[in-house]
């Protein structure tokens, strides 16, 4: 089995999974907060937040990558400050995770926001009259009800993070073993003549992973929906 892929290909697959996992995990709570704010919040700057969240969806990925480099590069002000406390993002796998997270964020927030908007605020009011404080209401009523949307958002973000290319290659390049994820590895393999077999293997893995993610979301949200409706 291990011989089916070359060590470099295994490395790219492993790195992609690691990058996508961390990108999803770290952006999950942030995405939830942003989705709650956009769905429920009535505050100044809400449309600005909405625009910022969706920006990576409409900007050319290379632009997003460059903006990340300009912000988190070692010589950029924020990057230098982070460097001081030992956090380096540029040209590291952590930077690839950041790029993937930023690119996947709009998809994640969108799925969660739709789920939150579908929750009847009357149920939350009912919980409050029964004595539940706001955090309790969120934990016991809102969160369980939006769980399918949260999971869908997470899986979607994971799949998107697995496939992120433009921003990643601009921000962290494609360093084998550090930042060379599956898409950048496919791109690199394409540059070498006679490497079609390797390209096909990685393309196949990408397709299978994407479809598995989609099937997983379907399965999970259907199961959760069934649990909620109780039928």
């Amino acid at each position, binding site marked *: 089995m291990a011989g089916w892929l070359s060590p470099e290909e295994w490395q790219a697959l492993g790195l992609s999974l690691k990058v996508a996992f961390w990108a999803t995990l770290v952006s999950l709570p942030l995405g939830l907060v942003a989705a709650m704010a956009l769905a429920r919040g009535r505050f100044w700057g809400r449309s600005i937040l909405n625009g910022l969240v969706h920006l990576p969806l409409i900007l050319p990925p290379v632009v997003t990558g460059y903006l990340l480099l300009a912000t988190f590069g070692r010589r950029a002000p924020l990057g230098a400050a982070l460097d001081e406390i030992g956090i380096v993002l540029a040209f590291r796998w952590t930077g690839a995770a950041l790029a993937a997270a930023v690119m996947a964020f709009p998809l994640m927030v969108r799925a969660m926001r739709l789920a939150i908007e579908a929750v*009847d605020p*009357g*149920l939350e*009011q*009912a*919980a*409050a*009259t*029964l*004595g*539940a*404080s*706001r955090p*309790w*209401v969120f934990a*016991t*009523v809102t969160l*369980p*009800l939006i769980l399918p949307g949260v999971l869908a958002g997470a899986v979607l973000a994971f799949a998107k993070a697995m496939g992120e290319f433009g921003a990643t290659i601009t921000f962290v390049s494609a360093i084998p073993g550090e930042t060379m994820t599956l898409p950048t590895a496919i791109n690199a393999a394409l540059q070498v003549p006679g490497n079609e077999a390797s390209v096909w293997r990685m393309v196949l893995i990408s397709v299978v992973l994407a479809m598995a993610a989609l099937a997983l979301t379907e399965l999970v949200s259907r199961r959760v929906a069934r*649990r*909620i*409706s*109780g*039928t």
Partner: protein
Amino acid sequence: MTAPGPADAAAPALSLRLRHGFPGLTLDVAFEAPAGVTALFGPSGAGKTSVVNAVAGLLRPEQGRIAVGGAVLLDSAARLCLPPHRRRIGYVFQDARLFPHLSVAANLRYGARFAPGPAPQDDFDRVTEMLGIGALLDRRPAALSGGERSRVALGRALLSRPRLLLMDEPLAALDAARKAEILPWIERLRDAAEVPILYVTHSAAELARLATTVVLLDRGRVTRAGPVAEVLSDPDAAQGLGRRDAGAILHATVDRHDDDGLTRLSTAAGTLWLPRVAADPGQRLRVRIEAQDVILSRARPEGLSALNVLPATVSQVRLGEGPGALVQLRLGEEAILARLTRRSVAALGLEPGVACHAVIKSVAVAKGDVGSG
């Protein structure tokens, strides 16, 4: 924590004063409610739900003061406004609002963990038994009928051990059969006198059956408030109830059931025969007599099919703008209304002090208009 103070036994169950401007409606309401069921009655758009939401803390009025059993929940002058979860006000919503992801049992137990102190030992069993929902505990709300949902919502609110129970037209979404199913549960609750209830309705029949106190609301203002028998037998208040719905209540005690399907009841005004009433002899009932079902006669009528002829004295006459008139009749300590034509009022020479006989057809009293109490 500014925990609400201990309930003061002498304080009214609810004392409320509030002002709030909505587009097109200014709510300016003040009333006090004793224990029992206080019905907020009025046409839609009168501001009933807004009043209830202000008590629950779901609406923050511009100005006002709300105290329940002596605990102040809102005092705009003192800049005090407790959030909903610190008010301990049970709220039974019209649409039940059960948590769809929780079982009936989990719905019922939801509020108990937030109530202060340990729950009385058999609280859960007692409430589920009283409401007849013991068999539903493992189900999900989606698998309940409308009537079952209402009862679970009521049980859930009760088990949070509230200081006051708000019920916002809990029966409005139900058909007549389901209504008839729920009404006795609410009567039991009222008669057990465990918790004061503020009950929103626009049904005169529900009002007559459940209320101990009535607050009539119209376009954001209180037009009349008082004990139910007094308000319902007042011809002036009848305008606020909708003339077609006018009807007063008579208190009665079941005497016996006869073999021909009639039940004999005694009232302050004499004997009343009604189609079989589902109550045991000795039980106290309230019977709503609709004003349009009452016929008046100066002389004691002879050879009449109607079984109920009660001696009465005219106490008030209100001529309407159209051909109709409302006459208030005293029967002992109680009063009922009769809806007549102005022509009849003139022909019979009806005026305060005149003695007459009120004729009530037995079958005119609907089953739903007889309740405990």
